[in-house]
């Protein structure tokens, strides 16, 4: 980056998980037959009028509160521009008085990103392009489906506080986790229920912000990071070779791995915002806001803290494991397992690495019992992992029974003791050096015992036996 730093601000459009659209009673449903979820309002027929969906407002307020925003008196404006997928040729959005403003989002590593605003607006219809490559450029004609038209959106605008593609990715991942946690969206980026636009510029540290370019419609975390990294390098290269950056909108070409200019016939954008006369102001009462606040579920940050409080270490590896557990929404399982006796550190590690959040999970009891057996030495790490894998097919199975079915016979204390005696006898020199204080030899004896028991012995039990004989 030749001493440049990247400056990133993100605009995230999030579809709300309401039953109906923002201003009419048509179903808010992805994937239905085209133009079947349409009425005079969402197709913008003459004489139709919008009426605001109360649940959408509630979801938007949840989002605002989860992002530490001020939730305030607001109103809707018309954003006027012509586009065929926008039936009224204006979008009902919010302008100078958004519902939510001045918030923050804390990344798992503690970095705080400013949230400028999180406002409500309506989605557009969807175009399919015929001829050419199926993209808008080079197509002969387009077909429009208005099922998505009028679906409620919250647009979350960040401050230009991010400094790398990885950080932007972490922001969107955390934002997505928050939005899903509050129940406002399903967060499915690939289906377009979360869409990200990135504003990217570069500068030498300490200098004012450079000219920014906007990369539109990034629909996965991976493309977001790649697109930002590419774009930052492109801008640095351009500056280094003496060019100026032109403020423009660019699109990300996933296959080519590069951003490209959207060379369109640029009309001057003058949206002529004015207050939507067909809607009245939105003035959420303090009582309503407090009611929504008090019903908010625990947010990812809080859920991570709850788990971190259970484990005794807070090194970066543990923080990562905890983040993974919360991201995959396995934290409730872990917490319940710990409550029923599983050791926390082990439960977190096993949940993060061995459980498949999207698949079948073991019952709390089975998960807890497996962790307990491993901690007690009744199962080796390898065996415990195998038992957890087997629990996918039988989530409620008794791990003891599974272990024996898998042939993980437990070594009795007697037979472990006998084996250790044999190993000591066969390595008398090393034993006397160990007894004399050479701690490094513990490793040697554990290895020998493991070999002799074909891995069935529990490491901790072996250490305990060795210690007992050493004193």
């Amino acid at each position: 980056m030749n001493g440049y730093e990247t400056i990133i601000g993100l605009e995230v459009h999030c579809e709300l998980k309401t039953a109906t659209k923002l201003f009419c009673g048509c179903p808010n449903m992805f994937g239905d037959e085209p133009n079947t979820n349409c009425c005079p309002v969402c197709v913008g027929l003459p004489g139709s009028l919008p009426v605001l969906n109360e649940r959408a407002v509630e979801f938007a307020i949840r989002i605002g509160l989860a992002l530490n925003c001020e939730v305030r008196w607001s109103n809707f404006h018309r954003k006027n521009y012509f586009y065929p997928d926008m039936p009224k040729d204006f979008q009902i959005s919010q302008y100078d008085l958004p519902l939510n403003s001045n918030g923050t989002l804390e990344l798992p590593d503690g970095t705080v990103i400013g949230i400028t605003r999180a406002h409500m607006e309506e989605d557009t219809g969807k175009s399919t392009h015929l001829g050419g490559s199926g993209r808008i450029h080079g197509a002969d004609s387009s077909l429009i489906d208005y099922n998505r038209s009028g679906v409620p959106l919250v647009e979350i605008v960040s401050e230009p506080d991010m400094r790398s593609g990885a950080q932007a990715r972490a922001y969107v991942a955390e934002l997505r986790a928050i939005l899903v946690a509050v129940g406002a969206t399903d967060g499915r980026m690939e289906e377009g229920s979360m869409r990200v636009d990135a504003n990217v510029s570069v500068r030498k540290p300490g200098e004012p912000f450079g000219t920014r370019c906007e990369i539109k419609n990034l629909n996965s975390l991976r493309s977001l990071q790649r697109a930002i990294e590419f774009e930052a390098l492109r801008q640095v290269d351009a500056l280094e070779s003496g060019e100026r950056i032109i403020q423009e909108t660019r699109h990300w070409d996933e296959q080519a791995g590069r951003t490209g200019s959207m060379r369109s016939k640029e009309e001057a954008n003058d949206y002529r915002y004015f207050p939507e006369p067909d809607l009245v102001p939105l003035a959420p009462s303090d009582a309503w806001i407090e009611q929504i606040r008090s019903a908010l579920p625990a947010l990812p940050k809080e859920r991570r803290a709850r788990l971190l409080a259970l484990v005794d270490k807070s090194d970066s590896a543990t923080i990562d494991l905890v983040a993974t557990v919360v991201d995959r929404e396995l934290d409730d399982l872990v917490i319940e397992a710990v409550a029923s006796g599983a050791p926390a550190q082990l439960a977190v590690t096993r949940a993060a690495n061995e459980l498949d959040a999207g698949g079948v999970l073991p019952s709390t009891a089975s998960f807890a019992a497996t962790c307990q057996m491993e901690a007690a030495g009744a199962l080796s790490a390898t065996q415990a992992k195998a038992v957890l894998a087997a629990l996918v097919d039988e989530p409620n199975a008794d791990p003891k029974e599974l272990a024996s079915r898998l042939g993980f016979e437990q070594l009795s204390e007697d037979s472990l003791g006998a084996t250790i005696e044999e190993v000591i006898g066969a390595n008398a020199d090393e034993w006397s050096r160990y007894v004399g204080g050479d701690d490094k030899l513990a490793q040697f004896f554990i290895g020998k015992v493991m070999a002799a028991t074909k891995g069935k012995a529990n490491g901790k039990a072996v250490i305990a036996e060795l210690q007992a004989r050493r004193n």
Partner: protein
Amino acid sequence: MAGLARLELSPEEVETYTAQLGSILAHADDIAGLDLGGLEPMAHPFDIENVFRPDTVTPSLERDELLSQAPDVERNRFKVGRILGEAP
């Protein structure tokens, strides 16, 4: 202005409209110069707030009736010509 409004005016129309709009805007100057600093802009006749509908599904239109009014239809979608440029 005509471009923003997606209208095309002939040179004669431009001339007439410019003159007419000029005289209307000249009339509007009687308010342009007023000191109304203390007044709240009025978007609605009445100060009503918080009008909502419940999030319950109501019947959508029959697709055939909706599409029957469209200038051009293909595969149950509204058909238009080439779109030059992405949405802003």
